[in-house]
């Protein structure tokens, strides 16, 4: 009997460690707000001012929109404890900035997170490996880096936090749409012109609903079990086109979009389906077990009633 309790204890502890792994600290106060204030004085506004020592006047200039950052987004993101010069050259502390600084190499995720035990559960090495196989890497080589999709100045680890599925879908799809639905941005990596997303996806019934309910990567990536977000973006010919891949009780969304919620629900002794009920509806995937049983019983009873009636009709004839 004691062994049984011991096993239960181990089981519960194993889940509590998983809980610790899955929850990213998104609440602690940012550490270096003061250090960053000087940078953000200019880089968080569209108009910045400076004293011109040559003319002696205070000038107002328009900031390059690519260098304007939202401080609220930065201080609620995963890199909020950093000071700007942790990643950028300390030479940026002088103004005007040295022109050569624009050649400054940018870190990629793996430069900081690779081989770090603290981030082992994020599998950055696998992400790097999977990205290496993707069309983004094979077609665009080193021109394509992590920051094309992930903004380090506002990034949130949404998939393993308590974000609503709709929020995750919207944020992740925005990453893809920022190039694939924006011809100007798309030209950063290709001269080819793209058809509008709506036209490419017109085979989907109610494509708008699909786009608001699931992420592009659901159909356009190869799912890798150890990862939360698949990074191997497949060539378009290999995209999922079979409806039943998602629209069935064995929906592939369990191992992608609903992964965090699936684990959470299991932990809370719920069923995957009860999670699905709350926020979303996928025809063929949401099956209410009670409704299934109820319908089978009701249908069976009506058939039985008919059979009994037929029996007596024949017998009494």
């Amino acid at each position: 009997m004691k062994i049984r309790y011991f096993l239960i204890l181990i089981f519960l502890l194993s889940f509590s460690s998983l809980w610790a792994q899955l929850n990213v600290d998104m609440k602690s106060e940012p550490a270096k707000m003061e250090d960053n204030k000087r940078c953000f004085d200019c880089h968080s506004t569209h108009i910045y001012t400076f004293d011109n020592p040559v003319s002696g006047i205070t000038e107002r200039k328009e900031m390059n929109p690519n260098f304007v950052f939202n401080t609220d987004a930065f201080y609620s993101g995963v890199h909020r404890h950093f000071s700007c010069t942790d990643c950028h050259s300390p030479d940026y502390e002088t103004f005007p900035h040295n022109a050569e600084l624009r050649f400054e190499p940018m870190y990629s995720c793996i430069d900081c997170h690779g081989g770090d035990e603290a981030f082992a559960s994020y599998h950055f090495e696998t992400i790097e490996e999977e990205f290496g196989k993707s069309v983004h890497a094979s077609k665009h080589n080193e021109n394509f880096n992590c920051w094309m999709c992930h903004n380090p100045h506002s990034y949130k680890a949404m998939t393993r936090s308590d974000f609503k599925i709709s929020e995750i879908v919207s944020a992740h799809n925005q990453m893809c749409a920022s190039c694939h639905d924006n011809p100007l941005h798309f030209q950063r990596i290709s001269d080819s012109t793209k058809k509008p997303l709506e036209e490419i996806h017109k085979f989907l019934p109610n494509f708008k609903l699909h786009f608001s309910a699931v992420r592009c990567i659901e159909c356009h990536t190869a799912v890798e079990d150890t990862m939360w977000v698949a990074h191997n973006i497949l060539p378009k010919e290999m995209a999922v086109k079979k409806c039943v891949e998602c629209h069935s009780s064995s929906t592939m969304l369990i191992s992608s979009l609903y992964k965090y919620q699936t684990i959470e629900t299991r932990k809370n002794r719920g069923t995957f389906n009860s999670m699905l009920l709350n926020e979303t509806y996928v025809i063929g995937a949401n099956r209410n077990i009670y409704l299934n049983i109820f319908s089978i019983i009701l249908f069976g009873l009506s058939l039985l009633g008919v059979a009994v009636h037929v029996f007596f009709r024949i017998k009494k004839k």
Partner: protein
Amino acid sequence: MSEKLYLYPVWLRIWHAINALMFLVLLVTGVSLQYSNPDYQLIRFDYAVTYHNIAGIILAFNYLIFLFGNILTGNAVFYKLRRKGLVDKLLKQMNYYISGTFKGEHTPFPVTKKRKFNPLQKVAYLATMYMMIPVMIITGVALLFPEMIIMNVMNLSGIYLTALLHGIVSIFLLIFLVIHLYFSTMGSSPTSNFKSIVNGYHEPH
């Protein structure tokens, strides 16, 4: 044999035929969608979606024929239900189905020119045609245009709640179909009522 009664006018028979056909398409495609399985597909998912949508739209427009037909031709009279003594009448009809019919008794509410349905039929048809089918049409149209649906109802997906109602009512409609088909065999002969809905003439017992 008594004289045949002309009970089912042409418009009603056309409406009934379209309704029955669309009902079956919706049922089969609906089951295929709800229980879709990659290993065994009753109907390919995207085909089932298209057929279900088309059949649903046809059935919804066809329902207008039923509504206006009832109003304009006076067919609605047959559905009028008097509350007074209703329970007794229902029990009488049930009793006939449970025991009377086996003893060779006559139906307590025989079909006449003025009475097409017995009280149990009236209740079942009223519930089906004036409650369940409208609910199915409203929820079906909402699911066809989900942007009309409130997305979040007390932390539950509005689309899910709509689909749940659509699914629950569909189960009752399936049961209705089973019973409707079976009771249709209880005419003067097992096939007489099926002939009636094709040629319009009712064969009395």
